[in-house]
């Protein structure tokens, strides 16, 4: 199959998918009890005041009319303004995207070589002391949830030893990134490394690697692409998870990223911000999956 045509078709199919997500989020927020007016009314939740705010924000209009107005704005590239702060949604989303993208990007950049390194090292010495040690360590670490690891690391390195800033409040400097990126890396490195290891063991025993060795070719270049195929789909889910903003990690390290913004917008029932985020998440999911499928196609051309 022609890969370019396939990609174009997939992208075209992504548009209705994203639209579908936007509709779904709109309906789901509508189904939640309370709305932005309640939040804005703050400490004096008297019904008349809430009603007044509702009228000001146009929240008393029927559901379909509000959705139509939002969709019309979208076609002009206008995502609307936050019901709570009044700032444009595009600005809010972009501001939150920057720190999340830095964290996610760095994590993936380190994740790929690290998991290949660990997976291949274990596979080359299958059953050895190194392999068993790596297996034990990765199983144990994989079982530690992010928030627990984050708190331990902050306590040890951020507070007790005070080697690294405990939060990202002072801006995402290199030293402030060390702890959150470490926390984000640990579990994916363990799981991806395990996948690379088992695939590599199979591939190293395969007739085509033996054939390459007989011919004096570098076996590593012959084995690696085949061993990566199973890891690619797993990596996709990891990237998607990272780009969604890992709420717990952002909360512990006080990083003003997408996760925190999302949690806040849900709490405030700030529908335009939620919609903006939903569009972004849907689009990244579609894109990341497309890239993964293209990579998978290249890594397993028979399928």
């Amino acid at each position, binding site marked *: 199959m022609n890969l370019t045509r396939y990609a174009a078709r997939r992208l075209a199919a992504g548009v209705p998918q994203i639209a579908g997500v936007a509709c779904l989020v709109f309906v789901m927020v509508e189904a939640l009890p309370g709305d932005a007016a309640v939040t804005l009314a703050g400490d004096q939740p008297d019904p008349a005041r809430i009603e007044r705010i509702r009228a000001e924000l146009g929240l008393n209009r029927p559901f379909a009319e509000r959705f139509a107005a939002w969709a019309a704005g979208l076609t002009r590239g206008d995502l609307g303004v936050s019901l709570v702060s009044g700032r444009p949604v595009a600005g809010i989303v972009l501001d939150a995207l920057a720190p999340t993208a830095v964290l996610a990007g760095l994590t993936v950049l380190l994740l790929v070589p690290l998991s290949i390194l660990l997976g291949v090292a274990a596979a080359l010495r299958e059953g050895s002391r190194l392999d068993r040690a790596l297996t034990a360590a990765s199983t144990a670490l994989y079982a530690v949830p992010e928030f627990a690891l984050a708190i331990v690391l902050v306590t040890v390195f951020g507070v007790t030893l005070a080697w690294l800033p405990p939060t990202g409040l002072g801006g995402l400097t290199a030293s402030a990134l060390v702890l959150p990126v470490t926390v984000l890396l640990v579990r994916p490195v363990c799981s991806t490394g395990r996948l690379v290891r088992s695939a590599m063991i199979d591939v190293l025993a395969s*007739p085509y690697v*033996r*054939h390459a060795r007989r*011919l004096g070719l570098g076996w590593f270049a012959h084995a690696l692409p085949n061993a990566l195929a199973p890891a690619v789909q797993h990596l996709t889910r990891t990237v998607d998870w990272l780009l969604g903003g890992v709420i717990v990690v952002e909360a512990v390290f006080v990083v003003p990223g997408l996760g925190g913004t999302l949690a806040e917008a849900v709490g405030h029932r700030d529908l335009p911000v939620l919609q903006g985020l939903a569009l972004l998440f849907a689009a990244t999911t579609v894109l990341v999956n497309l890239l993964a499928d293209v990579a998978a196609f290249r890594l*397993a*051309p028979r399928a």
Partner: protein
Amino acid sequence: MIEVDRLTVSVPGRILVDDVSFTLPAAQTLALVGASGSGKTTTALALLGEHPAGARVTGRITVAGHRVTPGRPPAPGTVGFIPQHPSAVLNPVLRIGTVLRQIAARHGTSVPDALRRARLPEERSFLRRFPHQLSGGQQQRLVLAHTLLAGPSVIVADEPTTGQDAITRAEVAAELVSPGVAVVLLSHDLDLVRELAGQVVVLKDGRVAESGPAVLDTPRGAYAKALVGARPHVAATRMEPHPILTVADLGTEVLRGVSLGVARGERLAVVGRSGSGKTTLARCVAGLRAWTSGSVRLDGRPLPPSGRRSRADLARVQYVPQDARASFDPRRAVVEQVARTAVRLRGSTPPAAREDAFATMASLGLSRELARRLPGRLSGGESQRAALARALLARPDVLICDEITSGLDPITEAEVLDLLTELDVTLILISHDLPMAARIADRIAVVHEGSLIEHGPADQVLRTPSHPVTRALVGPAEEPRPF
């Protein structure tokens, strides 16, 4: 060049090679012949210092003055190995040109030269293909090209011509015995062995049964006599005049409007050169791939062009693939996979299907012990029979066999052909070997470049071929075979 002295290879419970010795001077050809499972491949791999996992090896092997042990295999490239299943040694992820250039760079040789010698196209578009986009015969010649590129002093070739038609076979055979290279040939193709080998070693159950330069012409022992004399006994067909399966104007990327019918109980052979579209045609008919134009009808009822079929239709038309071993899951016992057909397609209970599988495999000469093994521990011929058993468990009306005799020794080949003629099915035999097909087929259809070029009763096509391609396929020096 090669000295093998009292080689014995055993795995727990079984002796694979028992006290085998032979020598081969440089630039000469030695053939190892014998039934599947006689220890040919184990002996051949020992020349590369490779042994089955957990094997006990005694004896001494010297190649080009170098003592070969598992710890000290011959230098890369000096002993070229062409395995029986070429698809397994081709890296599925790398374009064929990439690998060829890597080998050429490593050994300082030229890719176009090797492609020419292996009778493969040199176009860029061909080199950009992946191995799975090649036909079985092309894959085999690609592995030959790999081996030639490494500039070997010894080539060990395990059935190097099984996927090749008569024309390519002769060309490939000529390239194998190129000047200065010693060749160890493992083959069931006794005509090829006669043509190439100066020395023949007949193996039976891991032992040397007979050896010498003229074993095939004047066999002394009973086993060698049986091997040379084996020919199938063809039972008469029970043919009915109504077509059970018809193909009309079938078109795909490879096929250009093929029309063909087969009557109930008939044996039809579809013959053509490597890459002519035979396998594509078979896969369309079996419901394993989609087609773009035309129709396939079973009992007059059209089957969907998407290739998606009901279980009943799938059961009625069964396919035995060319690369039988690759069609098995390497991690499950063969009998379980064979039995699965009956469970999936006929709704048998698993215990009943298992008994059925054991019985069918036994009727094809595969013991219970063998049936319980993993697919990797079956020889080429055994996996082919297991694949046949798997198809038969569906109780098909139409059985399509793709190169079913490729890689079988003459005795086993005759047995398999006998078995096929005894089955109460409509048989479609896909083969590059026209004389072999003519031995059991009622009718022969010749496919060339995706079109049907000749079609008629088997003896007519064999005796008076009208198309030049058919004439070439009949073979340049075909002696009349006893029917």
